[in-house]
């Protein structure tokens, strides 16, 4: 177990951190706008790299067509990160980042072919959700979300990891753990003013990763007692839309706190409801003595 965590979680996290550190070093050059965009692009690439490395450590070198259908998520997420990277030039415009969202949507719908949800309707819906969320988060990422981006990301992917664990899909749980570790580690390593600026590139990647992995969990959990809970991490992404800014006009509370609270409530509900449903399903005594490790 310790070997697996070191290889499939710690190593991807260190790779992600190295990418972020390199971006930080590069970001010292150029104007403010260019620096922030490089930082955001680095987030996207770091998260995708952490996921990809974790999957490859566990499943071996990438192949096409993929050995298992869920490996297609790696290609979709990598494509989203590269598309985000391509849109991180200083000449970035609303049109270009709209194109990035559409590109990520096409990549998700094209590469992700999961059992039971590979109809045109499912894949079209997946692409539409990715496009909408990438656009919404892209707009939100133009303003400083502060620590909510790395902390919220760590919460979302930790909970997704837990949901995968509950559904007995340990390999995906470990890969999600690698992304969560990358978010947390990157948040600590990056200077505060860069850590909170995921920019369009980071936003497109986060949207794609979350939606694609949520659908993956749903597809491979056909006997799950509460499958709809897989949608809650995706819903929690709206916390990143709430977070930018100082204080909410009605409540007077810091918007970052409200944004993070939204993420924690959605993800907490997903984890809690799923855990409760599975425990009450049956065979509690047997459940208590088995661990996938």
């Amino acid at each position, binding site marked *: 177990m310790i*070997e*697996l965590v070191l290889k499939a979680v710690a190593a991807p996290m260190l790779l992600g951190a190295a990418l972020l550190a390199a971006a930080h070093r590069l970001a010292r050059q150029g104007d403010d706008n260019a620096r922030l965009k490089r930082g955001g692009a680095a987030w996207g690439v770091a998260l995708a790299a952490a996921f990809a490395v974790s999957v490859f450590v566990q*499943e*071996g070198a990438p192949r096409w067509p993929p*050995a*298992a*259908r*869920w490996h297609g998520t790696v290609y979709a997420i990598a494509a989203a990160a590269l598309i985000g990277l391509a849109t991180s030039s200083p000449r970035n415009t609303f049109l270009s980042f709209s194109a990035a969202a559409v590109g990520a949507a096409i990549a998700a719908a094209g590469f992700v072919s999961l*059992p*039971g949800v590979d109809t045109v309707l499912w894949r079209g819906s997946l692409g539409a959700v990715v496009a909408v969320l990438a656009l919404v988060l892209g707009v939100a990422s133009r303003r400083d979300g502060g620590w909510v981006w790395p902390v919220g990301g760590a919460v979302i992917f930790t909970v997704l990891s837990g949901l995968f664990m509950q*559904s*007995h*899909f*340990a*390999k*995906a749980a470990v890969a999600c753990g690698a992304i969560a570790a990358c978010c947390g580690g990157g948040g600590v390593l990056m200077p505060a003013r860069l850590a909170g600026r995921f920019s369009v590139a980071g936003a497109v990647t986060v949207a794609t990763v979350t939606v694609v992995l949520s659908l993956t969990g749903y*597809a*491979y959990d*056909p*006997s799950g007692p509460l499958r709809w809970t897989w949608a809650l991490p995706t819903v929690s992404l709206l916390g990143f839309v709430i977070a930018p800014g100082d204080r909410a006009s009605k409540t007077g509370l810091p918007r970052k706190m409200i944004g993070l609270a939204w993420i924690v409530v959605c993800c907490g509900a997903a984890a809690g409801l799923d855990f409760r449903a599975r425990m009450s*399903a*049956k*065979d509690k005594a*047997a*459940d208590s*003595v*088995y661990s*996938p*490790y």
Partner: protein
Amino acid sequence: MNPRNVVVAVAVIAGLGCVLGWRSAYLPEAGRAEAAPATVESFAIDAVHSKALFRVHHLGAGMFYGRFNDVTGTIVFDGASAAGPQFDVSIAAGSVDTGNDKLDGHLKSPDFFNVAEHPKLTFKSKSAKKVNDKTYEVSGDLTIHGVTKPLTAQVDWTGTAEGRGGKRCGFETVFTIKRSDFGMTYMLEGGGLGDEIRVIVSLEGMIGGGR
């Protein structure tokens, strides 16, 4: 002929007939083999009386057993022929049963059998060679986890019988495979679960309704 002798002779012949009939219907092994089918027949695998078991080394310590409950397919067999039986066996991966629901769920996940993508384990024989009166060497294609590999195994003919509404035949085999050959590598590193899997398959085929 003395009528008394005639009655005694009839009684002896009838008694012998009863004993032989009882032997062929109920005695295991020897009796059943004598009732070999004279022509090639196709038997449907009786899912109730057929099972596939597997054994794997767990944590380098104990031998862990599990089974598949849903075994279906056909057996084409002529006991009098040297050609041997033909098997077309299909096992529902989702019927894996270890007696622990959570462990069953993990075995069905993409970490192991990936039931959502590969719902069936199959074996289709290509040839069979008679080793002795009771044993055949059967070769064919084994598909597990979406990967097909050639397999040759010694298959024992455990008997053929008629009764309970139909004709039945039985076969049993024990063979060993490496799960890594079929792309199942979870917990292989570090010796969490062994690579070699011993498989025990017992099949009962039937013609007619049966029970």
